[in-house]
Structure formats: C-alpha cells, structure tokens
C-alpha cells in the first residue's frame, strides 16, 4: 500500500522532489492522525454531553445562550 506523498522544495538549489513519506515522516503522520481522531472524539463527546444537559434542563441551545448573556 502506497504512503502519502510529500513535496520537498530545496530552496537553495531550487530542486523539487515528490516522493512517498519515509519511515520517520510516516510515523509522524500517523501520530498526527491519532491526535486528529482523539480531537474528533473529544469534540463529539462534548457535543453529546451538552445535548444531554440541555435535554435534562428542558431548554434549547438558544435559550441557554440567552441565559448566559
């Protein structure tokens, strides 16, 4: 399976290379993907908790904003 490609522009020699990520770059890329998925899960969990609380209080999101303003 091919890896994501990376464009490297050596600005001193003006040479441009397009190649697949090497092992270290691919590892960093996978770490970033994990971080992204964690952020997505956190965002989803927060939204879910917020919706549960609004339901418990019996108010809408707009009404909650009005209360806090």
């Amino acid at each position: 399976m091919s890896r994501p490609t990376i464009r490297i522009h050596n600005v001193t020699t003006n040479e441009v290379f397009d190649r697949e990520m090497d092992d270290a770059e691919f590892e960093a890329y996978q770490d970033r993907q994990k971080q992204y998925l964690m952020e997505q899960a956190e965002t989803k969990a927060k939204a879910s908790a917020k919706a549960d609380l609004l339901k418990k209080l019996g108010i809408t999101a707009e009404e909650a904003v009005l209360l806090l303003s």
Partner: protein
Amino acid sequence: MAKQTFTTGQVLTAAQMTSLQQTAMCGGAASAKTASYTLVAADAGGAISMNSATSTTITVNTALFAAGDTVFITNLGAGICTITAGTATVNSSASLALAQYESGFLDFTTTSAAIFVKGSGAAAASGGMTLISTTACTGTSVVLSSIPGTYTNLQVIIDNFAPSAAAKLEARYNGQGGTTHQSAYFSLGSTTFLNPTSKTSQARLTDANLRASNNETRLFMNIPYYSSTDNQKKLTQFQLAGQNTSNQDTQSMGYIMYQQNNTAITQLEFFWDTGTTFASGTAYLWGIK
C-alpha cells in the same frame, strides 16, 4: 558576440568588429530563453537572458568551456532562475538564484569548474527583499528545505490554497516532533484566545475547517531572526483568511513560538490536520535583509 576562433589572415568585417566592441564593453545581444536551459560551448563569451513567469534553471556541464571563458546571465522574468551545477562545479559566495532583473556571470576557472559572480543588486545590505522560492502545493505535505541563513527575516505567503477535503492548516519547523511548537490565535467572531496545540509537534493556524477546493484562501507569515542561534525564542506572526465549510468568510491571526531557542530555522513544512492533500496553492518564500 560569442567567443570566436580566428584564423591567420582572416579579414574581420565591420559588423564583426562592432559586435566584438560591444562584447568588450560588456554589451551585445543576449540569447533569449523562456525555459530552463543547459549551456552549450557556443555560449562562451556570450550573454543569456531568461524570461519566464515560473522558476527555471541554467545548467552548467563540464568539458564545454575553457579556463577564462565567461557567460553573462540576466533574469528578466518573475520566476526565479537558478544557476545549477550539472556535471561541472559551480561555486559562489552569493546565492545561485537570480530573482527578476538580477544578473551575474559565470567565470570558468577550468573546463569543469566556474565561479558565479552575482551582481551587487542581489545582495542589498539592508532593506532588500528577495523572492527565494515559489512552490506549487501538492501532496500531503509541502516542505521548504535548505532555507539559506543569509537573510534577517523570512516572509511566507501561501496563496489560493485549499485542502482536498475540509481541514485545518498546520505548520512545523525543521521537521521536529516532540514538544517543540506552541501556537495561539484567535478567529473572527471568537472572543477567546485558542491554544489547542500548545507545545506539540506542530502549530495549528486556524480553528475553522477550510472549505475544500476553494481558492480564496491566503496565509501570511513573518519570521524575524529565523537563522539566529542565540537563546531567544523564534516567533512567527501569522494571519490567515479563507472560507469555512459553511462558505462563510473566516480569518484567524496569532503566533507560533518555536521552542528550539538555539536552532536556526532551515525548513518549513505545511500540512492538514486530517492528513488530506493540497488541492491547490502556491507558496512564496521571501528573504528580507
């Protein structure tokens, strides 16, 4: 007039003498090029003028020129023209890249080595601004590497860029991971400073997912004293404007603190938080004296 080999008894014409006189006075017609070019033996003693809107190279190979030969090169186009060592060796105390209206000449010391002497206009002592590189953004990650440390400040503009699928732009310096970057920014409509990627391997440049394949986005970055190796923080100030996934205008501004105090910045990398690819974009790197 390119270098000639005269023979005994040859009669020179008035046109030849005029052309030789022009060459001797550093003038004469240049051979116009509009794309990357490899020098040939007939270029000895002549002039090349490059005129291209995109980056080009002039390649220098061995066994074509004799010691003492010269070739004068001028860049008339907006694209950077870089003198590139092919099979020959090219040394220079200045950059081998010619920005628009810059010029220099190759002075061959042997058949396989030349010194590139760049015109003084290329090396302003202060206040000068040079377009170092122009890079079309493609792939998952765009890396500007081997940034010369000969300028005081760097300026980066990425124009008309977009992800292939909605995502947030991130940046990383010197390819370094660990706790090396800290970013903080605020976005239009937000009253809170956001600091979601504090002390991580990369810095985030916007809180909004930028719309896929939209060409209205522009990033502007300033990096003062990027090549300093003293014990001072490397600070980047940035501004980003584009459209979010709801087609609304969005902008953010903030800073990146690169935490490797004693390390010069020689590489800049840009990528998307989701791992998607660049659908478009052009990155311009400027050096400021």
